[in-house]
């Protein structure tokens, strides 16, 4: 290696090192810091008697929405309200007794299973428990 090549490599390498040392903090700055997600374990979703048969209620469960359904038989069921296709929030449709996602027309039955449309997975089901006058919803263990 002659002196010219050495100087070129040295200067080129130093320039590259400087560029990287400037870019690194900028890139790290652009990546959002990890924040603790609010993970709910067990919350009061509704009061007993609040939901008529064949109706539902959306409630906040941690940092996302969940749905509590009182079926026409009077059975309480709870699911994540986040559609498994592209994360829109599902809505309860009493006439068909299904959960419907208006974004891409995905439909789930009251066990959370996909009946039609593009969702690839069932909705996450939660435990429902009645205690005192309250309806508690919790994640399945």
């Amino acid at each position: 290696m002659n002196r010219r090549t050495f100087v070129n490599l040295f200067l080129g390498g130093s320039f590259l090192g400087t560029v990287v040392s400037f870019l690194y903090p900028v890139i790290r700055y652009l990546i959002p810091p990890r924040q603790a997600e609010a993970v709910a374990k067990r919350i009061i979703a509704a009061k007993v008697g609040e939901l008529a048969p064949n109706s539902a209620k959306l409630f906040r469960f941690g940092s996302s929405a969940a749905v509590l359904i009182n079926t026409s038989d009077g059975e309480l069921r709870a699911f994540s309200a986040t559609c498994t296709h592209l994360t829109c929030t599902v809505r309860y449709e009493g006439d068909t007794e299904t959960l419907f996602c208006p974004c891409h027309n995905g439909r789930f039955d009251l066990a959370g299973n996909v009946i039609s449309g593009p969702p690839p997975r069932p909705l996450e089901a939660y435990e429902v428990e009645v205690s005192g006058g309250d309806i508690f919803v919790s994640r399945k263990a």
Partner: protein
Amino acid sequence: MNKWWEKMQAYLEPRFQLSAIRDFAQKKKVPEHKHSFWYFFGGICLFLFVIQILTGVLLLLYYTPSVDAAHESVQFIMSQVKFGWLIRSVHSWTANILVGVLFIHMFSAFFLKAYRPPRELTWITGFLLLVLFLAFGFSGYLLPWNELSFFATRVGTDIAGVIPLVGKAIKTFILGGPEVSGATLTRFFWLHVAVLPAFALLIMGIHIILVQSLGMSKPIGIGETKEIFFFPDFILKDSVGWLLILAVVGAVCVFLPWEAGPKADPFASTPLGIKPEWYFTFMFTTLKLVPAHIFTIEGEVLAVLGFMLGGLLLMLVPFLDRRAAHEKRSPVFSAIGLAVVLYIIIMTALTYLAPNIGK
């Protein structure tokens, strides 16, 4: 008046070397033939972009980019600020018209094979500008923080999230966290008013320099043609198009002012009939029709990868269409282009005419 003008020119000439610019403008000519109508759409895009900058700067005066205040500030602009409804409507309507004209400009350049050497980089910078303006549309849509824009952003960013390997990291970066929140609004605002305009101006500068230095492309098979001067003849004709567009923008803003919509509630059900801005609807309807699984792969992943591959092929068309590069007609590429245009039109029409498709 004339003396004052001469004095002014004498002062500016040695400082700005105006004669060089004038000489260039006087020499530059534009070919005129049966397809030269399509040349005007580039100028219309530029004109609409200038309107976007002017109205965007005005909106910044009252808009507040926070979850608690964004929707309220847009409502304030629409109802309290004098002519606020007009400025915001012009901004929103022009954005939509601009994307439409960009599509026309791109496909007309495609069918006239204007991407032939030495104009490959003109095509690529043009394609990048289209992508940038779609990003402008997507980021600007969330800023009023209304119901529709909230869920459209959720779906749009989740689409980025399904890209294998890097999707999750891209989604977190765009959203500023795991889901659409105040951090997303801040990021979209930052993108919309700082990052995207900087890139758009840079790439547009390169695009315009290329167009000016290489001149307009003549379609294959068009030999010697009549030429008109760029300045003032072509510019004057172009300005007729600008005035027509301005009249259209004014009319739609007065008769159909842009709505603010209800404020977003992240814990409410997605409203019925939700759909994105019209220029994303062909992808939206495709995602409705794609089955949940194709073989063992999730349908949405395949669809998103398909769109990305389609975009990449479109960008690289100057290097793929070898026949056009040798000044020969390339009907296969024209047929593929026509199929793409028909696909976009049919899927867009289905979004509005058959909203329950796939239900």
